[in-house]
């Protein structure tokens, strides 16, 4: 019990004093997950748009594929990627294994099913006439698709946030293809497992607290953003009582 309380106190001390090891790990976690989400959005959004706006054979199969991969165990994905990226694997020549690039790639692949699924559901919920409406106003196919995407923007943002949550909190991929190399590829989750195993509980607890704070913060930001939108709507609706009258 004393150990735990002592650990928590030490952890808080590390957080407050800005311990460089601690914040290096936080920084890498945010950076790798952030870049992974950007990557996943870059390829996932067009896939989601295809799935929701175009008709083609085997579409329901593709959807089922993405849906079923949402819950893939991170360790299994990590293992598969390890086999592919290791020296003997098909992409071994890239030399990505145990580099930040491997973690980013792995996390991007991990979150793609969530991102695609939530995004296409959001796009499908948009009034189907929006596409035609944009076209009657002169939009070409891609401009009209973007108009639809804008209508689904809340869902698209949600898909990105859910993906970031998954990426920043996952362990298996970062551990297996990142190698948990201190100062290079260790992130919040892998570092927690390492410090716990070594008995350096203060660092592990500090990292755990920060991970929780990040996840809570993200959710708080989402709620606040919704509130802000709402306030903005009120403000736009009644400019007379907020703006000073001339």
């Amino acid at each position, binding site marked *: 019990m004393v150990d735990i309380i002592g650990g928590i106190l030490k952890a808080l001390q590390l957080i407050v004093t800005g311990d460089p090891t601690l914040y290096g790990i936080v920084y890498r976690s945010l950076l790798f997950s952030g870049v992974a989400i950007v990557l996943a959005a870059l390829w996932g959004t067009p896939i989601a748009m295809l799935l929701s706006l175009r008709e083609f054979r085997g579409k329901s199969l593709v959807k089922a594929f993405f849906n079923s991969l949402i819950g893939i165990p991170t360790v299994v994905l990590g293992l598969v990627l390890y086999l592919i990226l290791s020296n003997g694997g098909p992409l071994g020549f890239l030399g990505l294994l145990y580099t930040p690039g491997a973690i980013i790639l792995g996390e991007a692949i991990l979150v793609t099913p969530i991102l695609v699924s939530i995004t296409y559901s959001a796009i499908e919920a948009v009034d189907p*006439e929006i596409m035609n409406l944009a076209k009657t106003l002169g939009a070409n196919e891609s401009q009209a698709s973007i108009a639809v995407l804008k209508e689904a923007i809340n869902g698209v943002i949600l898909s990105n946030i859910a993906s970031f949550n998954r990426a920043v909190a996952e362990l298996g991929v970062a551990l297996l293809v990142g190698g948990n190399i201190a100062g290079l590829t260790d992130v919040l989750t892998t570092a927690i497992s390492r410090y716990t195993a070594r008995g350096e509980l203060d660092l592990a607890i500090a990292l755990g607290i920060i991970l929780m704070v990040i996840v809570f913060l993200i959710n708080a930001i989402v709620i606040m953003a919704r509130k802000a939108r709402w306030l903005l709507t009120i403000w736009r609706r009644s400019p007379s009582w907020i703006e000073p009258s001339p």
Partner: protein
Amino acid sequence: MAITAELKNVTKRYADKTVLENLNLQIQDGEILALLGPNGSGKTTILKILALIENPTGGELKIMGETVTAKNAEKMRLLTSLVFQKTTVFTTSVYNNVAYGLKIRKFPRELLDSEVKKALKLVKLDGFENRPARKLSGGEQQRVAIARALVLKTKLLLLDEPTANLDPSNAVVLEEVIATVNRELRTTIVMATHNMFQAKVLPNRIALINEGRITEIGAPPEVFSKLSKSLVSFAAMDNTYKGKAHASGEGTTIVEVGNGVRVEITGQHEGDVSIFVNPQDIIVSRSTVESSARNVFKGIVTEIADLGSLVRLRIDIGRLFTVQITKRSFDKMGFNLGAEVFIAFKASSVLVV
């Protein structure tokens, strides 16, 4: 007279249904052409083909003399704009809604504000720029939709039942706008309608559409004089009845439309006539109301349809009458299916066609 658009032998088939069959139609420069016909007759499909958001299965479409092909469709689409019957707005401000098409056309930014303002003024929505479009009433949203199309000043403006879901005050604003735009900008307008009153007043020409074909086309007086003949095919049209007329001697005429329903109309008529009663001119009440209306009937509510800000009721008085009332009065009156109600309309609200 120059031709703005032309449909040549246009056919449109969906999986198992032929919607348009070898349709030929020339739309003349600067005219208002009304497509008049019952629901499901193909009016909307004609408009969608003219707006280039629906491809015909067969035939040819020419706009400003140029044949539309898969290659030039996106460019040709810039020449037309379509306002849908069911209003759709982008989830953003009124300003962004109206500016959308201009931004697509890379309209100079510095002129954008004044063009949007002008268009909003035309539909009497000045000052609405920053409001979220979704929060407006149905009638106001429809006016945003009109402004959004008008601001583009396309050669050809297509309107699908522009006033069908509007309360009378919003409908009047729109009819004025349509007339103004046609007169001042020489915009060619094709509008689908099943409101005979509108068809008689607004357009230069009327095309009667039934089952995917044009059965009559010409100036309103000409078409209306022939309408009785082709009206059989219009049985599906709301509130249109065929009957025998007897002048009553008091300057009015009684028309027997069957099942004991006798409708009083103004003017002297004899023999076979067809009449139309505008659904928005009919008053519904729970009990007989003392009024100047010459036609009062007791009936039963057989259908209730929600049209957004309006509610459409079908009332069986021996013949089926369609009535449109605002949502507010519907809620206040609390009509339900099978309710016994009274309908009333003035003799002058009946159009003899």
